[in-house]
């Protein structure tokens, strides 16, 4: 099967989880013998075309940038992506399916699929409405509209969780029968390599509690810091590592100073893969107390490193974690409950060890990329078949 993917993110250009997802999905599809071409924005010093893990990666337009003219840049990128796709389609003798990831490539996906009469699959990873807890201004309205039309015009829509399926149904009015749920995947092999010389040193006696992710309100880092004095009261050796960056960083640092625990809360800033692995390697527990989370890939990543997880009982996280079976769920925003859960996992080694094993097992059995690539192929086959049926009828 010949697959054409449009994606705004692809390594090394990574903003959220999208780039990693497309990277893994495409290489596992290629490993199963499918031909995969990806069209993604230009990245300085990277070639316009190369084959990576069997995947054809095409970079077009100008390097991605966020800023005032981001919208303008996005649409220009779409036009360049279309141009490249027209060329490739001739070269490969016609793609069998077009797969668009999120609104940033909506017009490229829609036009190409329509004009070349190729079935279109769209993955809606998150929505503007969800990201902003509502639609508040003109640009959000426009993005919401683009997401809606992408969801409505695709032959089938892939979402990563029941939660996202509900959101896409309710927001955009797409019938539930036209949505397929395929979770995001995790490859445990990507979490094993450790740095020769870590950027920061974790002391032998420290009991590490960690968080990874963007520092934005919806991730609940505020509540995590707020509960930490209670944890320190029971376990003075506890240290909180916060990996990642984001607009809320200054406020969060101030909060830990105001609480008098600045020496027990470490902000690593941007964290490289190997340093991240190092933190997970030393962590007793990973905490993701999100208030909104379409999927929650970070929890799976932690589980893949044999780290017990505590998650906010919300969105996709709630679907990944079976409470006290492979992790612990807490009520989003409840500081006391969060403190209690962390203390329990720091104190009760037996329970923590149990969650390590069951968490890892979950990753392997449900969220392995081989399984996900298989399920995605099923969706491709489905849209191709129904397109063929339509053509025969016509």
């Amino acid at each position, binding site marked *: 099967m010949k697959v054409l993917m449009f994606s705004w993110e692809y390594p090394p250009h990574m903003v959220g989880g999208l780039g990693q997802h497309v990277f893994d999905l495409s290489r596992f599809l290629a490993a199963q013998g499918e031909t995969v071409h990806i069209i993604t924005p230009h990245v300085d010093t990277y070639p316009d075309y190369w084959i990576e893990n069997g995947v054809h990666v095409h970079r077009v337009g100008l390097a991605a940038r966020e800023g005032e*003219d981001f919208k*303008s*840049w996005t*649409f*220009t990128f*779409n*036009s360049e992506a*279309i*141009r490249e796709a*027209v*060329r490739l389609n*001739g070269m490969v003798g*016609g793609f069998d399916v077009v797969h668009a990831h999120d609104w940033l490539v909506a*017009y*490229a996906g*829609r*036009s*190409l699929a*329509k*004009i*070349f*009469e190729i079935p279109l699959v769209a993955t809606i990873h998150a929505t503007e409405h969800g990201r902003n807890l509502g639609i508040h201004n*003109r640009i959000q309205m*426009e993005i919401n*509209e*683009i997401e809606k*039309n992408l969801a409505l015009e695709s032959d089938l829509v892939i979402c990563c969780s029941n939660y996202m399926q509900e959101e896409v149904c309710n927001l955009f009015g797409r019938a539930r029968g036209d949505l397929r749920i395929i979770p995001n995947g995790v490859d445990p092999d990507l979490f094993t390599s450790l740095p020769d010389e870590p950027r920061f040193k974790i002391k032998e006696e420290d009991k590490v509690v960690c968080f990874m992710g963007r520092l934005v309100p919806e991730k609940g880092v505020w509540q995590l810091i707020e509960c930490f004095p209670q944890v320190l009261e029971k376990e003075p050796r506890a240290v909180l590592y916060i990996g990642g960056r984001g607009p809320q960083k200054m406020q969060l640092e101030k909060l830990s100073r105001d609480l008098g625990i600045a020496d027990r809360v470490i902000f690593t800033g941007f964290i490289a893969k190997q340093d991240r692995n190092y933190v997970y390697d030393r962590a007793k527990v990973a905490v993701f107390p999100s208030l909104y989370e379409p999927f929650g890939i970070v929890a799976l990543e932690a589980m893949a490193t044999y780290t017990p997880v505590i998650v906010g009982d919300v969105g996709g996280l709630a679907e990944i974690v079976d409470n006290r079976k492979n992790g612990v769920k807490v009520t989003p925003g409840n500081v006391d409950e969060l403190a209690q859960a962390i203390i329990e996992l720091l104190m009760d080694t037996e329970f923590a060890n149990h969650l390590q094993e069951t968490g890892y097992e979950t990753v392997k059995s449900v969220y392995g990329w081989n399984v996900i690539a298989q399920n995605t192929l099923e969706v491709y086959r489905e849209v191709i078949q129904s397109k063929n049926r339509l053509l025969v009828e016509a």
Partner: protein
Amino acid sequence: MNARIMMVLHSHIPYVKRQGKWPFGEVWLFEAMAETYIPLLINWLKLCDEGKETHITMSFSPVLLEQLNSKYIKQEFVKYLKEREAMSRADERYYLSQSDREFARIAAYYANFYRDIRRDYEMELDRDVIQALRFLQNRGQLEIITTAATHAYLPLLDRASLEDQVYWGKRLYEQLFSIEPQGFWLPECGYFQGIEDVLIENGFKYFFVDSHAIEGGKPLGAMSPGGNGEEVEIETFAATGLSTYRPYRVEDRDITVFGRNSMVSQQVWSADYGYPGDEAYREFHKSSERSGFKYWRVTNRSQSLDKKQPYDPDRAQLKVKQHAAHFVQNLENTGKRAVEMGFNSPLIIGCYDTELFGHWWWEGINWLNEVLNCINNSPEIDLVLPSQISPATHEARVFESSWGMGGKHYVWENAETAWMWDIIRKAGEEYQSLKGLEQETLMGQRAMSQAIKELMLIQSSDWLFMVSNNLTRDYAMKRFFEHYTKLLRLTHTVRYQQFDDTFRDWLRRIQYEDDFFSYL
């Protein structure tokens, strides 16, 4: 000498045939046909019968004419009229069942309207709008001019595309009217120095610009409905001492330029003090949730939509008579003042979008008819057509300008649309890179003639306008990207001569879909 009044109506609907029906697409064309074009033609045919002068200058975009002339559109339009009639009858029954006699009466008024329009369209016009236009033009009642092929905004277009837009605008006109067009309507009055050379090359004798392009000073501002609420810097143009009361020859060129009179334009167009905002007139912005019909009158412009009162056609008709009389009185006064200023038989030029009458301003059809009748009866002013004007004796240098907000290119070129111009430019280059090559196969020739249609559809000013104003934005962007993708598929296939069966079948389908300028 009497003042001379030149009424210029510019008509355009983008190419929507087989590009969506409702809520976006063909319905736009059907509304304009039912509410504007057909009522106007019927009125003018009647005036002609009565031996009165219509003397209106009409511009039609070639894509609009092609659609009006399409068999498919003719059929679908009749279906549309039947549906609207049935729907208004259903509304009437509903309101009667609710004992709401007032709304039932308005519903019946609409039902009769659609019934009459269908009768007029089928019986009077024989479904042939072009034929009626031809007839009125041959009788000297109308002077029909042309414009850019797909209504591209010309000042920002590359030279080769500009030439194509003008050339095909002329060719289509000749095809339909069997004579050469004399006048050219610059879409949105978009002018830059140099465009007249392309017009002269194609044999045009005159064109129109906004007032400030001739006189200088402050542009009138927003002439089109919509507006995205942003602050625009309004440039003040240097006062030239020239006047739109007379035609000019463009400096060192053999072509006439007519300047729009700001007063008579504002009187009709302005949202704030123009006639259409009168409390008795039908409110455009409020529609029934049941059926989409508009049951309310403007009432009070400063109040919200839920405060609107029911519409009363009889009451509106009284206002129509007053406003028409007022307008003609104004023309007479303006003419007198101009004569006092030393202009011998001054020229007063009113330029309007045709769809303003009937579609936007429901009573505009009757108003215009009253105005024509009054002018016919006025001893002081006469209607005039461009061809009746003797050659201009004065010369003018014309400012780069348009009739859009800010007086220049802002409405079509701004932060929201910058990326579109980038694509328009690339699309032009893509087509031009193949244009000169001889196509040896029939398929190659067909692909190239389809490619220029797709290119011209990309260039329609409508997509820019919709994106600028955030109106039906997704439809505009979708069309824009789709025509671009079609163009690239065509040129790529031609470049590598990859003509296979799949391509042949596809080409046949899009020739059917984007089907205009069939002789191209």
